[in-house]
């Protein structure tokens, strides 16, 4: 049942519920501690797993002996890499030089924290004690952690099948980049370093696995967030049929921010464990395991050069990237490199570009999605260079951006890389940001502050906010020739599914497969369904727990890539519209009038011309369920509608590697003023304004929450957090004492404003905004700090700007080495 997009006119303003900040339906249970998370589930006879992890960054495993551990009272079984090698397949890896990636080390360990063995026992304490009794012998090997050094000819090799430690290399060219550089009045170059930081959800990975020996079926309860492509990947890894593998996701997940996409190696590991011991097995990842070995964002070294005219127009750019994905290239990596491919020019009219990407393996924890997936890296590079253009031309950085923006009359705008920007007005949003920030006044304040000797800086960053990944974008990681092979199945699309039913007494229930992690889907869906069915949101029950054996889902279902506000809401809106048509047709039939002459008010249908003639919603619903003979001829019994919204412009990449990598594209501008303490190097955010265009706003308060959350995630990465390793590959930040997260006390007040450019491609005109300022805040802080330090002649090329790093920059300006 595919459905007509754009049926409703975007920009409609006569909504009763859409656009209102109604109280969140989830909050009462969450705030009173009565949510239902994986750890709250009671599975009979559940046993507990503990995982032995490598203390070495790189070593050959010469022996793993479980015998002493298995003899400990209370231990019922365990597995080693040998079991994994025998009973599972490696995960599929999308790359030009893929490696074998299993759920546990089988021959070598390649990062500290890599699973080496696992034990199941009566309780977690016994399982943990048993780990101490496992005898492992390692032959240590030299480790490498720096991506630029890893590609050198004398570097230690992690995987024999990955030459030079380059798992994937693509040289992508769009437009005529050489001509752009020939025409340029000048060229600017920078080497920029973007760090590893992570998502840090309150709830870590959590899995319960149960194997039914008689049916051969495996059930995995987990806080899995999608995409559901991980379901066939897990089935394949465990060598079981997809219809024998059931994922169940409880109603509540305690945050993810991207990281829980990477739970799937553990789904396989726990699946194998429960198949081995034949009882349900539970594993809740502890915080140290999470920090050491779950997943983290890819770190990058980039060399970017831009070709610019003397008026400040950017004609093109070239980028050489070293993306460090850690020990294994784990799907959906190398998406840090390719996720933003359609919006890689940001909001600017750049026509020519080249990306030379090396995706490098090193002895660090494997990487994965982290809010702002690839875009925080991208906008850090793009926006640092825009400031460099301004500096070179002695122009105001705001002016340089205005000279390069895509103009409002150009939408839908096709980027050179194949992105189709659906709607927007970048200059208008930018002007609103300048006004909200009080840009002129802040520049004056800066002058005074500088005269007083203060290190006061103003930063600007802009970005196009891509929502809903087209499943096909990742195949840009493959050579086009591979994609052309007759056996190759092209990948594209981005679908989401919703089911709405009306019960015999007229009550509405919506079922989703969106696996939210706190985004408030229950509330938003209730709003949309109430809007379409002319009910109140309290009348709508939304169930968003998921069981892959029972729910209807698509390969791309889940909550990631800011997708719900764009495709999830579209599926819900379309399903509600279809259901509305049906109940109106039944009512018209029962009232014996034309469907156009039926009006609905206060749960009752009326004949427009003769309002005394009316019928209750429960009567209409009851007819559909209990009296099929009373339905219009040919109508299906019952009131159940399932709709899948599939984005029509999500094609597979073409032969020139062009792809519309997202469904909808929002826009954001961040502006910040900072002050740096000259003695400690500490950066203080004095003022922060943020303007967003996410199309039609469904729930302003939830959107505001996303902007605050996104901004804090970006601020964390720009000023506080970093996963650090020493040269031998030992992780230095495996506790929350060493990995410094900001608290709410570090959160600045944000002056938020919006413009709304409804998307012509979604029924409600809405776009995603779940990542929002996490993409632009790091660049904004970098630019603000660079502006503050510019009188000292110091450049900012690397994050995070911790007090240490700022102090070192200050010392270098003072002519003192540290």
């Amino acid at each position, binding site marked *: 049942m595919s459905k007509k997009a754009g049926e409703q006119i975007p920009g409609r303003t006569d909504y009763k519920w859409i656009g209102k900040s109604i109280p969140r339906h989830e909050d009462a249970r969450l705030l009173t501690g009565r949510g239902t998370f994986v750890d709250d589930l009671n599975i009979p006879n559940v046993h507990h797993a503990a995982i032995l992890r490598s203390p070495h960054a790189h070593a050959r495993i010469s022996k793993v002996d479980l015998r002493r551990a298995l003899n400990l009272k209370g231990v019922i079984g365990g597995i080693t890499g040998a079991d994994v090698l025998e009973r599972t397949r490696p995960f599929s890896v999308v790359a030009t030089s893929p490696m074998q990636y299993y759920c546990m080390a089988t021959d070598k360990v390649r990062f500290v924290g890599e699973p080496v063995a696992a034990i199941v026992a009566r309780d977690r304490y016994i399982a943990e004690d048993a780990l101490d009794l496992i005898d492992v012998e390692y032959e240590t090997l030299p480790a490498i952690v720096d991506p630029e050094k890893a590609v050198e000819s004398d570097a230690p090799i992690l995987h024999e099948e990955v030459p030079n430690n380059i798992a994937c290399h693509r040289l992508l060219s769009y437009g005529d980049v050489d001509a752009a550089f020939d025409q340029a009045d000048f060229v600017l170059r920078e080497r920029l370093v973007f760090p590893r930081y992570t998502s840090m959800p309150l709830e870590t990975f959590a899995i319960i696995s149960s194997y039914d020996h008689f049916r051969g079926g495996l059930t995995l309860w987990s806080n899995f967030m999608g995409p559901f492509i991980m379901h066939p990947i897990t089935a394949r890894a465990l060598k079981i049929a997809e219809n024998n593998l059931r994922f169940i996701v409880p109603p509540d997940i305690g945050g993810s921010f991207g990281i829980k996409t990477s739970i799937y190696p553990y789904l396989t590991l726990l699946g194998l464990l429960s198949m081995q011991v034949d009882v349900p097995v539970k594993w809740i990842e502890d915080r140290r395991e999470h920090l050491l070995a779950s997943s983290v964002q890819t770190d990058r070294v980039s060399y970017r050069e831009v070709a610019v005219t003397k008026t400040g127009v950017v004609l093109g750019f070239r980028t050489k990237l070293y993306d460090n994905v850690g020990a294994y290239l784990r799907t959906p990596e190398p998406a840090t490199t390719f996720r933003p491919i359609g919006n890689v020019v940001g909001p600017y009219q750049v026509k020519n570009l080249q990306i030379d990407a090396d995706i490098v393996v090193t002895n660090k924890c494997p990487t994965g999605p982290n809010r702002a997936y690839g875009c925080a890296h991208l906008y850090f590079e793009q926006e640092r260079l825009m400031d460099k253009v301004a500096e070179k031309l002695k122009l105001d950085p705001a002016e340089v951006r205005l000279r390069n923006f895509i103009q409002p009359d150009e939408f839908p705008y096709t980027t050179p890389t194949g992105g189709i920007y659906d709607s927007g007005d970048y200059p208008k949003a930018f002007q609103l940001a300048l006004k909200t920030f009080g840009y002129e006044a802040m520049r004056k304040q800066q002058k005074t502050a500088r005269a007083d000797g203060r290190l006061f800086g103003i930063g600007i960053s802009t970005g196009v906010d891509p929502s809903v990944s087209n499943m096909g974008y990742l195949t840009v990681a493959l050579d086009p020739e591979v994609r052309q092979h007759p056996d190759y199945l092209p990948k594209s699309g981005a679908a989401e599914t919703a089911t709405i039913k009306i019960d015999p007494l007229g009550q509405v229930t919506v079922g989703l497969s969106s696996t939210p992690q706190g985004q408030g889907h229950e509330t938003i869906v209730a709003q949309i369904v109430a809007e379409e069915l002319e009910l109140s949101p309290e009348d709508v029950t939304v169930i968003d727990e998921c069981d892959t054996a029972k729910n209807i889902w698509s390969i791309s279902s889940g909550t990631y890539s800011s997708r719900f506000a764009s495709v999830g809401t579209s599926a819900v809106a379309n399903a509600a519209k279809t259901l509305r048509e049906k109940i109106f047709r039944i009512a018209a039939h029962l009232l014996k009038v034309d469907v156009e002459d039926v009006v609905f008010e206060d749960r009752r249908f009326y004949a427009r011309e003769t309002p005394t003639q009316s019928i209750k919603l429960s009567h209409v619903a009851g007819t559909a369920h209990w009296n099929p003979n009373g339905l219009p001829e040919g109508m299906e019994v019952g009131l159940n509608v399932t709709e899948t919204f599939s984005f029509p412009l999500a094609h597979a990449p073409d032969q020139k590697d062009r792809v519309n990598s997202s469904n909808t594209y929002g826009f954001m501008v961040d502006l910040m003023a900072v002050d740096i303490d000259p003695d400690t190097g500490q950066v203080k955010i004095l003022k922060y304004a943020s303007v967003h265009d996410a199309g039609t706003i469904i729930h302003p308060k939830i959107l505001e929450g996303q902007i605050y959350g996104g901004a804090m995630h970006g601020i964390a990465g720009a000023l506080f957090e970093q996963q650090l390793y020493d040269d031998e590959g*030992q992780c*230095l930040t495996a506790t929350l004492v060493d990995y410094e997260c900001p608290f709410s006390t570090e959160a600045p007040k944000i002056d938020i404003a919006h413009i709304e450019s409804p998307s012509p491609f979604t029924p409600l005109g809405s776009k995603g905004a779940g990542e929002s300022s996490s993409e632009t805040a790091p660049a904004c802080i970098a630019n603000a700090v660079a502006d503050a330090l510019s009188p000292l002649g110091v450049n900012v090329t690397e994050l995070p700007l911790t007090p240490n790093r700022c102090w070192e920059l200050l010392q270098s300006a003072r002519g003192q080495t540290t």
Partner: protein
Amino acid sequence: MKLQVEHVFQVSRDVLWQVLHDQTRMADWIPGCEKLEEIEPDRFAATMKIGVGAIKGTYKGTVQIAEKQEPSQYTLAVEGSAAPGFVRGKALMKLHVEDANVTRLVIDADAQVGGLIASVGQRFVSGIAKQLTRELLANIEQSLRSKPEATA
């Protein structure tokens, strides 16, 4: 992690060398050493009890003496692993003659830790290393004093 310490002993270089290489007494001055058995010339199986903060463990491993240039210098390599992870270190031990009965011992060490100790005890590691070095020097002093016949 690199560490350099030095200490002046009121004995001749030959005596210090002898004490440092006396297999029956090495276990006395290697901090936390509970057992030391020669498995081949200059290579020993060792059991060491070391605590880093709250993480205490009994480390099993080896102690190796190499690159000997008697009586002026040699290297001492220690490695051990236990449930909390591993410790690995190599020290260049130099014995300088200051006077007939005065010898300066200079230790240039490079140590690594891994596993639980590295990930939760990182900020204690350098403190612990310094403490172990102080213990080492004190133990050697003690060794020299408790066996006065060695100085004869």
